Structure formats: C-alpha cells, structure tokens
C-alpha cells in the first residue's frame, strides 16, 4: 500500500506507523482532552438529569429570559456583522482605488491588524471614555448644547454595542475582503466599459456577482466573531443587555440561581448557532475556491 507513495528514506520506511504515533499523539491528545472532551461534556451535562436522559434543560432554552438573550445576541451579531461588512468593504475598496496615496495602504493594513485585535475590556473602556455618560465627546457635545443622553442615546444598549463592535468588525472585514477585491481584474472592468457598461452595470453584472461568495463568507465570519464576544459586552453593559455569553458567565460564577445543566444547555445552544453558521461558511468557502484558484 505505502509502496505506492514516493520511496521514503530506508530508516523511516521501516517504522512509519510508530513515528506517526509519536509525532502526532501529543497534539491529538491535547485537542481531544481540552477541546473535544469538554464540548462533549456539555452535551452530556445538558441532556443528563438526576434520573437519566432528559430534554428538560434543553427545552428550558425556550423560556422567556433565555429566548431574549439568544435573540439579542443574534440581532446584535447580525447588525454588527452588517455594519462591518458595508463600512469595512467600502473602506477596503476605497483604499485600493488607483488615485490613493501610496502609504495609505500599509497604514490601513497595520492599523487594521491592531484594531482587529483591540477588543475586550480595553475597548469597552475606550468607548466609555469617549461616549459614556461622562465621556469626553458626550461632555463636549453638552457644552455646545447637544444633550446626547437626553435625546435617548446610550452606549449601554444594543445600538451602543453595535457602535463599539464596529471597532473590531470593520478592520477584520478590511483584512478578509482585501484579497478578494484585489482579485477583481482591471481588464474585466475595461471590457465591460468597452461594451458600453456604466459603473452601475459593471457592479450589477460583473463585480458583485464575483464578489458575492467572498462577501457572504466574510459576513458569516464577522457574525461568529461578534456572537462569541464576551469581554466587551461584559465590561460595557454589566448585564443591562441580556446576551448569551454573559448569561453563561452568570451561571458559571453562581450569580443566578439556575442549575449547571442550564448553563451547559446555553453553551450548547451557542455552539449550535455557531455550527450552523460555520456550516454555511464551509459551503460558501468551497464555492469561493472556484473563483480564487485560477
């Protein structure tokens, strides 16, 4: 069987299987013990009650508060992903335009890599210092007669969270979509223009259809990114907006009187949403492959 492959050095050929085990085992054991088993444990915990198998805890996901948390999380992620998609996509496109200054591109790339990583607690505090009820911008606007919080705006709400999430979603979008934009050939546009197409015709019939798979997969990546964010909403809203990650952390730290199994069911529900989302991602990524390879 193995003779069909290219002839390996004599010494390795004699003991190939044993070496595969020695080289691979640490990694595979590690991932099994600390990623796969804990995930399966959630499955077991969520479905096992005192008297054997039960759907009780999974069914409890349908209860009022939990439904609200899941709806908030999904709404927030969908919106934050959309904002990132549109603004990040346009930013990447503008930066790549021929008339733009040279240094701009590396500036955006570098800053994008930093900003995409600048999430978590520090990001929450940066926005509190800016647009919180005593933030710099809030206070300055008040000085010139604009009362932000009086007019209904608050940072500690779903729209506020979208505004904060955009800070890591936009740069992530720029990083992800730039290769796809670069792959758009200038000749295609010229060909379209020679055939009498307007800019709108070009985008409607050539540009966007080619970009569509990349845009969809980018959207899904951004969705997942926002969906699993925990530190930013935790530090920013401290529970004012019900979100699934914060709900799970409340269960784990014993802040609410619910069973561990309910926490497991919540976490499982989260993984369920991510599996669906990543499944779509994988399907689309396969289609993108057709366009990228060439």
């Amino acid at each position: 069987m193995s003779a069909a492959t290219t002839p390996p050095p004599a010494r390795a050929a004699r003991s190939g299987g044993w070496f595969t085990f020695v080289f691979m085992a640490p990694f595979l054991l590690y991932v099994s013990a600390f990623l796969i088993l804990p995930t399966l444990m959630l499955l077991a915990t969520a479905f096992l009650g005192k008297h054997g198998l039960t759907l009780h805890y999974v069914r409890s996901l349908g209860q009022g508060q939990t439904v609200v948390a899941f709806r908030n999380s999904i709404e927030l992620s969908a919106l934050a992903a959309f904002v990132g998609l549109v603004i990040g996509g346009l930013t990447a496109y503008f930066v790549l335009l021929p008339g733009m200054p040279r240094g701009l591109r590396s500036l955006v790339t570098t800053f994008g890599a930093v900003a995409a990583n600048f999430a978590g607690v520090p990001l929450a505090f940066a926005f509190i210092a800016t647009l919180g009820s005593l933030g710099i911008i809030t206070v300055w606007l008040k000085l010139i007669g604009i009362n932000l919080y009086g007019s209904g705006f608050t940072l500690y709400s779903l729209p506020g969270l979208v505004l904060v999430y955009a800070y890591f979603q936009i740069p992530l979008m720029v990083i992800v979509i730039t290769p796809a934009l670069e792959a758009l050939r200038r000749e295609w546009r010229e060909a379209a223009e020679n055939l009498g197409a307007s800019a709108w015709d070009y985008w409607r019939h050539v540009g966007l259809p080619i970009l569509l798979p990349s845009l969809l997969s980018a959207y899904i990546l951004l969705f997942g990114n926002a969906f699993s964010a925990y530190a930013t909403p935790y530090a920013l809203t401290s529970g004012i907006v019900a979100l699934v990650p914060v709900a799970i952390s409340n269960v784990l730290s014993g802040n609410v009187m619910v069973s561990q199994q309910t926490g497991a069911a919540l976490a499982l529900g989260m993984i369920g949403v991510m599996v669906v989302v990543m499944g779509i991602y994988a399907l689309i990524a396969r289609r993108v492959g057709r366009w990228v390879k060439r």
Partner: protein
Amino acid sequence: MTRRGATLIPSLGLGVVGLYFITPLLATGVFSLWEGGDRYGFAAYGALIHQPKLWQSLGLSVRLAIETILVGLVVLVPAVFWLNLRVQRLRPLFDFLSVLPFVVPPIALVAGMTTLYTGPDWFVGTANYLVVPYVILALPYTYRALDVGMRALDLKTLTEASQSLGAGWLTLIFRVVVPNLTTALIGAALLTIAIVMGEFTFANILLFNTFAVYIDYVGQTSATEASALTLLSFLITWLAMLGVLFTGRSGRGQVQIGGAR
C-alpha cells in the same frame, strides 16, 4: 470626471472612518489625564505605577503568554512537521481541528472545562491552568503560521539530506527544521502574545488575576486609571502586531486574526 474628483468621495469616506477609529483613542488619552474639574495631569499614571497588583497581573500575563507559546510549539511543531512530511492525508483532520476553536466560543469551552476538570488542585488550582485553554485559543493562528512556514520548506530534501548525514529525528527537528522556521515561529509567538495579553473570558471565569481582569477591576473604581491601562494594552497589541507584520515577509493578509474576546 477628473482624477481629483474621482477620489473626492472615497477620501471623504476614509476620513470619516479614520475619525471613528482615532476618536476613542484620543478621548481615552485625554480622559486618562483628567484629574477632576479643570485639572489635567499624570496622576492616574502615578497612582498606577505604585500598584503592586498591576505589576503582578502584568507579570502573570507575560508569564502565561510565554508558557502558552512553549506548550503550543512543543505540541504543534512535531505534528505539523510530520503532517507535511509524511501524512498529508491527515490534512483535512488538522484543518478541521484548527477551526474548531472558532466554532466553540471561549465562554462555552470554559463551561465545558469547569464541569469536566474539577481537580487535582495542583492542576486546576494555579494560574498555570490557564495555559491549557490559551493553547487552544491560539491554535488556529499557530497552526496556520507553522503550516505556511513548513510548506515553504522542502522538508523531504532536508530530511533526506540530514538523515544521510546520520542525524536522528531530534537533531533533524531542532537543528534543521526549527532554525529554518524562525519567521513562522516568531509570527506564531507574537500572535499568541497578543491573544494572551488581552484574554479575559477564561481568567475571569476561573478567577485568576491576569492583566485584562485587572483592567476590568480598576475600571470599577477609577475610570481615569482604567483609561491609562487601556492605552497600555493598545500599545502592547500594537507592538505585537507590528512585529508580526515586519517579520512576516510572506505578504499582507497573513495577520488574519479575529478580534472578539
């Protein structure tokens, strides 16, 4: 339309986006200098420097980052090496495992870990335990960086050459493969530092006082000190990412790291 006119709207658009990204940083900077009323100064920074807890948490995060890098490399380098040299057919499995951390959100993973591992105390009772999930968190990035690095090497020739000169596997890995991977290894290490220094989910749930947890703790009492720490945290991310960009000559788009924590 003239060329100047064609870039007017894009320039305005980029200006607005740029403003959105710069404003919070400037505001945080101004806020960190605020001493109440009309007074501005470095009081917050002065107060922070004398906080032993700051240095303890910062030191802990740095130590955890180094441990995470070491454990991650010890586990991954041999596996990715053998994957590229001999068992290419396992690649789909590795690709699958390396995106799993994206599918299982950190908060869900920590829920699973706390129910699965309740002891022994020397294992789950010290902050070193955090290294375990951190290696998983960094896995997508370290695996990619190493895989890209190994693919660029002609592993087959390197292996045959060193073996025909009498080198064993250990010599081969440590004296031939690893030195050829410096760029990839530095890239993986810097990404890991950026991830671990900002990590909050695991440390907060498992009650260990890392840098991010300390920032959150400070933020509950002093907003100006928290702003100063926010700037410090941004600076650390900035340095790590600059390092990745400058060492990773393989081009843009390599730094595909997801933001949310």
